[in-house]
């Protein structure tokens, strides 16, 4: 069963804006995630399954705007996002 996280404003948090851990079937769309101290959106090192991150605006976050530590973003689809910095070319 899919979870949806949409149209939230996640700004100015001292650590990570959105932290996604473990196995999850979720869609993140149309959120604004800016000015957070570390990552804007970050996936757990343990990876995810069925994650879609689309059409979000993530700007000026401290470490990276978007972060997927899983090689080639396996298990996740990143598309249509507006951002400055990301750690992999599979993040769009």
């Amino acid at each position: 069963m899919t979870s949806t996280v949409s149209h939230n404003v996640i700004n100015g948090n001292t650590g990570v804006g959105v932290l996604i851990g473990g196995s999850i079937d979720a869609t993140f769309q149309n959120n604004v995630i800016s000015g957070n101290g570390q990552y804007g959106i970050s996936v757990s090192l343990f990876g995810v399954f069925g994650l879609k991150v689309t059409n979000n605006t993530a700007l000026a976050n401290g470490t990276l705007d978007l972060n997927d530590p899983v090689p080639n973003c396996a298990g996740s689809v990143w598309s249509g996002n507006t951002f400055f910095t990301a750690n992999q070319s599979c993040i769009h």
Partner: protein
Amino acid sequence: MIPNRKALVCIGLLVITGTVQAATFINACPFVITSPGDYLLAANLMCGGGDGITINTGNVRLALEGHTITAGVGAKRAIVASKQFGVLQNVRILGPGLITNSGANAFSAGVFLDFVVNAEMSGITVLGALGGIVTGDSSNLTITANTLWQNNVGISLGDAVPRFRKMTSAVTAQVFFTKISAPR
């Protein structure tokens, strides 16, 4: 007259069967919700010494009605949806409403869901907590139009495997049965 009589009979039957239920107003914390229904925050709350509002049954609609829940001394989580065994279903936590810290007092989580299926959180602002919205082992969530500001982590989504707790409970029951059987 006949249509009016029919309407009265219908209303009477609804009341008798318990279909029509008045909302419950929340004026103080800690507050534990143990019965399904509608719950409305009726005042601004200062919650310390543990969790503020705890939901441990399913089919609950909690509306903050524009009020504020402020962390007091020893505050833990402002709103928790969780129960010791099993999975909660159909929980709605609705704004507008503000969950905030006060001075050195902060909530460990603004809204915390654990083993919940089918939940909605919308229109809530969480300010200055350790985690704004935190979920674990929950699925089919709708988290929309919230504002997470000046927390440590805005939104933290954990595993989406609510069936794990059921499996754990079953194993516990099996061990208990074995212990009872051993002296025979």
